[in-house]
């Protein structure tokens, strides 16, 4: 499992560093014919946000909704069968979703803890902080529902991350507005890279399955779409943080490197424990 996982991670990281951060994927509108529309929907981000749910629905409509055995659908010959998941794929999904839930828990707590000290001195940031917190809370709810649905174990470090994230949020907010924004910038950079890698791995699976004439299945197709949306929202938070003078924080390098290192360690631990 790790052999499949680590080359992709390092490759993805190398690819991300060489590409400017604003462009992670092609965002061209889909102009190809309907025959390959289903394939195109997985492999490109549609231009407007209304489309992902429509595309997921059309992908879902094309696939058999509740059958998992290909022998059962006699009539749906036009829809390719859902490929089986290998043990390493299950392990990947297990640890990836566990880490995502832990990450969103940390994000919600960081924003909750940053808000009171920050708003005392900068009350004009209230709408921004509320917006970011609400988006993170939505992500957290989504991953909680996924973990419950797929019977994935949450991380055993849950109380530790709870305390650490609260402390990090409060600490950086007490240091000042720029430090709080630098913390957000550091965390969102790591999270953005992390989600991007996951989307890449899932797209890789989809491609391999399509070569065998199978599809990834509705669950995973929807997951790819949701991960993309979440990643885009995290990068939006990154942009907001930079706009709000995160780069003016002193000591900038130390703070961001420590926080980014901490995030990577936390991700690594949550994958295993």
């Amino acid at each position, binding site marked *: 499992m790790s052999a499949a996982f680590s080359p992709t991670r390092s490759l993805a990281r190398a690819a991300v560093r060489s590409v400017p951060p604003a462009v992670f994927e092609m965002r061209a509108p889909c102009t190809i014919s309907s025959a390959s529309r289903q394939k195109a929907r997985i492999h490109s981000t549609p231009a407007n946000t209304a489309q992902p749910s429509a595309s997921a629905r059309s992908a879902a409509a094309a696939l058999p909704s509740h059958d*998992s055995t290909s022998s059962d659908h006699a009539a749906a010959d036009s829809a390719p069968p859902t490929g089986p998941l290998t*043990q390493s794929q*299950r392990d990947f999904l*297990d640890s990836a979703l566990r880490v995502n839930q832990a990450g969103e828990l940390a994000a919600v707590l960081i924003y909750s803890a940053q808000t009171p000290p920050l708003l*005392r001195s900068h009350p004009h940031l209230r709408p921004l902080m509320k917006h970011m917190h609400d988006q993170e809370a939505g992500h957290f709810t989504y991953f909680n529902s996924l973990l419950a649905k797929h*019977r994935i174990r949450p991380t055993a470090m849950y*109380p530790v991350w709870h305390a650490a994230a609260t402390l990090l949020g409060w600490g950086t907010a*007490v240091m000042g507005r720029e430090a709080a924004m630098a913390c957000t910038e550091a965390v969102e950079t790591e999270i953005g890279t992390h989600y991007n890698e996951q989307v890449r791995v899932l797209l890789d699976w989809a491609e391999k399955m399509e070569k065998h004439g199978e599809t990834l299945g509705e669950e995973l197709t929807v997951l790819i779409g949701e991960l993309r949306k979440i990643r885009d929202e995290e990068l939006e938070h990154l942009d907001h943080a930079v706009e709000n003078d995160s780069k003016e924080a002193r000591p900038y390098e130390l703070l961001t490197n420590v926080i980014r290192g901490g995030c990577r360690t936390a991700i690594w631990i949550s994958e295993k424990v």
Partner: protein
Amino acid sequence: MPPVRLSNQLLGTLRATSLRPAAAWRQRCNYHSHEHTQPPPFLPAESAILSAAIAHVPHYGFTVDALKLGARDAGYLDVSTNILPRGVFDLVNYHLVTQRLALKDTVQFPSGGEQGKRLGLGGKVRTLALARLRANEPVIHRLQEALAIMAQPSYVSPSLAELARLADEIWYLAGDKSVDSSWYTKRAALSAIYSATEVFMTQDTSKDFADTEQFLDARLEDNMKVGGFLGALSEWADYTAHSAVNVLRSKGLRV
């Protein structure tokens, strides 16, 4: 014994224990997909022999005799039991796994729109635990033997893993959706309660295991009391800490 031969023997043993049968690892399915099929927990040959052997357990116990008779019934040679490297533990494990997986089919909870009280989460857990205990009834007089096999040092770890999976299955079928640290405490508590009740059941001679049901109810009630106390304590601590911080803030301290 010459050192080279000894070290070769040791290496051989280590290699054999590390190349576990595929079946043991197949049960480590963490991500439960509702769309993709789950692989079966046992290989076809193993499944054939073990399912036939289980039928002999009430008479012969969890022994190699039951395994050999099972192999014969399934149409294999007696020596085919060698495909089960853990011997009688594989038979015990088969019983545990099949009874765990049977829970979702044997226990159905009536859905909403019915008169009468609907079972809460605790009630459903109780029903599922009782159902699983009652599934032990055909082999109850052999269960102490099974527990002794499970307690052997090399089988303690897989037995505990199977107990954890049972607790997870019961909570999942009862409809538990929590995914924070209570996920762990709930399963640990249920594992402890279930295993204590099972041991009690092996020496229970009352009619229709009424004493076992009482024992289970008493343990579940203890668990509720402790859980309630700890919950109240943590709520109090949380409230006190938040209040202290808010009072300091209202006094102007930049906290």
